[in-house]
């Protein structure tokens, strides 16, 4: 799992630190563009804010990615895909949710088809509030996440593993069938 390649040379604590440092500095993200938040990604990527300087680059598939961006409201149908993508990512993996919709339903609070709290279904490491959050806020979120990783606080993937059954139960409560 998390073994140290050279246990005799590198102490286990340092190895963990190295690992966290590496993860922090090289966040490859897959952005799941569900809502209006996707609009805010291009300025964040391009020359104005340039998130690549922190080593954050967009990736095409969850297999390669460490960071899942959920950029807006999550319909039930979309949630299914989000869960799948999340489960296809390799540990350690992190989730950032954008805007108020994944936090509390936001604009779609009384929709019959939209979930209100993403956290119930997959573990979210960072929420960026706002409707929509500006690129500055997004950058700030990224930095916060990096800090959290460095301090070992971004442990959503551990939570998901630990409470897998509960997460699954929550998910199944909104999905009628898993294979639709």
């Amino acid at each position, binding site marked *: *799992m*998390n073994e140290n390649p050279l246990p005799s040379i590198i102490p286990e604590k340092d190895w963990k630190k*190295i*690992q966290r440092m*590496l*993860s922090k*500095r*090289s966040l*490859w993200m897959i952005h799941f563009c569900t809502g209006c938040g996707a609009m805010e990604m291009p300025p964040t990527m*391009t*020359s104005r804010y*340039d998130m*690549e*300087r*922190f*080593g954050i680059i*967009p*990736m*095409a*598939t*969850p*297999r*390669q990615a*460490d960071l899942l961006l959920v950029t807006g409201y999550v319909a039930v149908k979309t949630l299914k895909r989000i869960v799948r993508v999340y489960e296809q*990512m*390799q*540990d*350690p993996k992190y989730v950032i949710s954008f805007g108020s919709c994944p936090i509390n339903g936001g604009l779609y609070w009384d929709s019959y088809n939209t979930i209100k709290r993403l956290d119930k279904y997959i573990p979210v490491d960072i929420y960026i509030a706002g409707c929509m959050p500006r690129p500055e806020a997004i950058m700030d979120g990224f930095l916060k996440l990096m800090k959290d990783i460095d301090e070992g606080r971004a442990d959503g993937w551990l939570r998901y593993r630990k409470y897998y059954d509960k997460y699954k139960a929550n998910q199944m409560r909104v999905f009628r069938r898993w294979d639709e």
Partner: protein
Amino acid sequence: MIDWINVLIQAGVTALYLFLAIVIGLLFLGIGRKVTARIHNRVGPPVYQNFIDVGKLLAKKTNIRHNWIFDFAPLFGLAGVLLTLAYLPMGGYRLLSGEGDLILLLYVMVIPALGFALGAGASSNPNAGVGVMRALTLMLSYEMPFLLVLLSIMILYNTASLDVLLSKQMHFAWAIAMLPLSALAADMALQGMMMEKPFDIPLAPHEIASGPMVEFGGKYLGMLMLYSAGSVIVETTLFVDLFLGGGVVLDPATYGILAYVVNYLVWFLLIFVVWLIALFINAVFPRFRIEQAFKFYWKWPTIIAAIGLVQAYIMSAFLGVMP
């Protein structure tokens, strides 16, 4: 009786060169990102970013695999690219290039690609299949001019051995001076060989989810990054060895160890230049479709390379230019 100590020293030096090549390759990838970012008016990541990326990927906690054929990709990819590097003279050091020639090199270069393609195919993701199809089609496209170029060089210098080619270029003239058109065609082919824009069709992250790599993550992707770092060096060095005399400016026979150091530096400079050219084109171009790439390669670079071939043929067969 084989001189075992000499062989061991050779092997050690070769290993060092291979290690350095991979390191330089990763550095180049980082430089590439930085340069591209600067062209895009961005800051860009630090040049050492790719070391971090590889480290992170190799240190990932979970890795998934599909089946045993899937494992061919990183294994053959990395082993093959190291083997290829071993057959390329780098900075005037011949490595194994005395034991095999250009044709061998051409085929050894296929091993990593084939291994990669096998692993990608085994992921049973349709995107991977499409990606490999594009990669192979692209290969058929750029090999046409590139083989003509190789042939012109082999005919003009009357050798298929890179080792001999380097010494002939050192004593006579760099091939870029003799065959400028072929060099042009080769550089065009190089763009496709390195899969830089406008020929990054096989990867095409936005169309086919990075194609063959779609299912690779963790250590698999890490090893594939090492492979792509190695192939950057393979491709640039191939161009430098073919046309720029491999960067050999001092004859090791007279200058000894100094020559190796100087040649290594010159070689580094030259591959850097070649890499930069590729990067500049990469940074400003959109992507071709695969048919367009095929048509392009079998049209202009091939015509240029054919003219170069005719030139080499005339020089060698009729004018008696004998380097």
